[in-house]
């Protein structure tokens, strides 16, 4: 399973649209390597990336934390 395939399965979750993280038309267009403005999608990408690359849970969690600590 590729990172893109893995990532896509999360993009299909209805909660992303319900909570306004994503619009329906963007779901099919989005690719794993494309940057987004959504913090949640970026978090998912970090997790997917680490998971496929075989990183440990704590490493991935730290990366997620760091990405969310930035004030933007």
């Amino acid at each position, binding site marked *: *399973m590729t990172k893109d395939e893995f990532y896509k399965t999360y993009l299909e979750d209805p909660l992303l649209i319900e909570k306004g993280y994503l619009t329906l038309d963007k779901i099919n267009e989005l690719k794993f390597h494309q940057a987004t403005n959504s913090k949640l999608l970026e978090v998912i990408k970090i997790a997917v990336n680490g998971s496929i690359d075989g990183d440990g849970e704590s490493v991935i969690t730290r990366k997620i934390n760091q990405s969310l600590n930035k004030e933007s």
Partner: protein
Amino acid sequence: MCYAGKDNCIEFSEGINVIIGDNGYGKSKLYDAFYWVMYDQVFVPEKKAFQSTKIVKSKLISDKAKAQADSGRVTASVKITFHNVERDNMYILERRYSVSIEPGNILEDNDAEFTIMEKELSYLNARMVTDEDKKRSILNSILPSQIKDYLWFQGEQVESIIDFNKQDTLTKAVNVLSNIARYDAMIDIAKAAAKTATTEYDREVKRMSKDSVKSAQLEAHKSDLERKIQNGTIEQQEINNNLSRAESRCEELLNKQADAQKVSVLQERKRGLLNQLTLLNQSLKTEQVSFHRKMFRNKWVLKGTEDLQKQYAKKFSDYEQRKLALEAEEKVKREIEEEVSSNLQTRLPINVPEPNYIEWMLEKERCLVCDREAKKNTEAWLKIKELLDRPKDKKKGTKDAAAVSQDFSDDLKRLYQNGLSLSNRITDIDDDINETLQSRNDLQGKVREANREIETVDSDIQKLLADTLLTSEQAENILNEYSIQNQKAKDFKEDLNRVTQEIEHYEELLKGVNDQFKDLVTGELPVWLIEKREVTKDFEVISKSTRERVFNSLIAQLEQEANVHYQAMTSGNKSARGKIKLRKLPNGNYMPEIIDSNGNPLLGLNTSNLILVKLSAIMAIISAKGNSGEVYTLITDAPTSVFGEDYTLGFCKTISKVYRQSIIMSKEFYKNQGLRNELLTNPEIEIGKVYTITPSIFENERTDRSNLSTKIEALN
């Protein structure tokens, strides 16, 4: 074992390869040979378990080989060559075990030798693989351990591979054969991230609190609530597991219950018939006794005595006539006597004068009537004496005295009259006997009918019990256990509701506590921190829901695939019904069941159906794996032994579609020549190589194994 000599070479090709042999012909030993090479173990029937070479030792070696060797080394060796035709590379796996024979003694080696030779291209020389890691890697590429159970199995193991009693076997299979574990790992990551964010957020809230005492109290309360929620969640999971177990057991029992109920109904019917039979037999016995009594009571003994009655009537008539004649004769005689008597004395009535006067007159020799002398022996004296000798006056009725010495007239008349009245009934005796015989025949017919029905019911019960592998007692127990499990399921549901409500209540309280915490905050919480908390929470929710969605999709795919195989295997079999549905249990696991076109579970499925569902699920798992580009060989011993011959061809057709190469050992094709021809010629079956195996000595004649070998013959 039973294969001796160096010529036991079997070549397999793509498609379905079949080894045909009856029971005891060496099929399982062939399966063992594969297993031994891969795992250094063989199945020991006496122990009903796989045992390693270290334990089995010299039993691995053919008795014939041991018997023929006077001294020196004797070796059992199995070599398997795996040829990847696409890459044209080869692995040659060989396991050898040797013993040293001395006169009267066998020295056993402890271990077997195992070698792997590798050919990068089939035409190159083979190189021995010495690196143990590489050896393991090669073995795993030939047969990955996680899917071994679904690829190499014996017929009897099908039950346990997909065990309906262990609800998670299907889930485990999905986990092993799919990427679902990655989604589980994502949930762990999301949980950890959410926990970190929440801890950070709570710390900040506490730091910014205007009332540290109140905050401390709230924190303690919060911890308490969180602990309660955690405990409640654990309890909820346990109840869910229990509920799932009870529901699946109910489901399983319900399936059997239908059979059990059928058995129970049939047994009830049998009991009724037996009671009816007892009553009928009693009536028949009574009728039999009554039949004998009727000989006298209903005067059947008179049957055929019509002539006797006529003869008797004639004799009686003769008797009466003779008697009348005698009486008439007597009467005449008496009248003559009376006449004589009256002639004797007409002047004086009888007894006049009285005899004492006469005797006195005779003594006095003088007639006192006329007062004249009557000297003794004179005419006058004799006249007087004549008066004394007169016949006595006959009493009235004397004339009716019996003419015969013994008069049986009255008795004979009564007999005649009785006979006459009975003779009138003789004509009815035949009807009476006929009616009685008819009634007895009817009863006997009813007894025969009841016996026949009992036999039919018995046969139905036995058939049902054989189909469901139930005993009569088990059938009764199933009904009892079903009601127990059903009650348990109800209780668990109530418990689940209670615990769920408790958790909801604590969560509500926790929300209140969190709000109170927020109210104590002075100033503004950092936006990024609030956002971090929300994002990680959403990530946790999404990771869970995505996992569930993917898993459900895998289950749907598995269900669809299993149905394709199920329909293929059961096509042409009238007893197969419905379609497979993988039902979700409260604890998230799935159970296969068969439903009708309306989605209702079908009950009373026979064992063959259930085995087919399991095989379909196994094949679905394997074919799903096959779709990902991985190809493995199925090796199975007697897979069809657990269901009828009807399914064998369907099974082979499906096998040849699902597995690129399969090797099955089967006795069905040994017994049924028609089935064997179909196997070899059916275009829907992608046939590989087919062999028959025949032992030199049949199992029932095998007192001495020292000359036992097995002949292998190719059929195509």
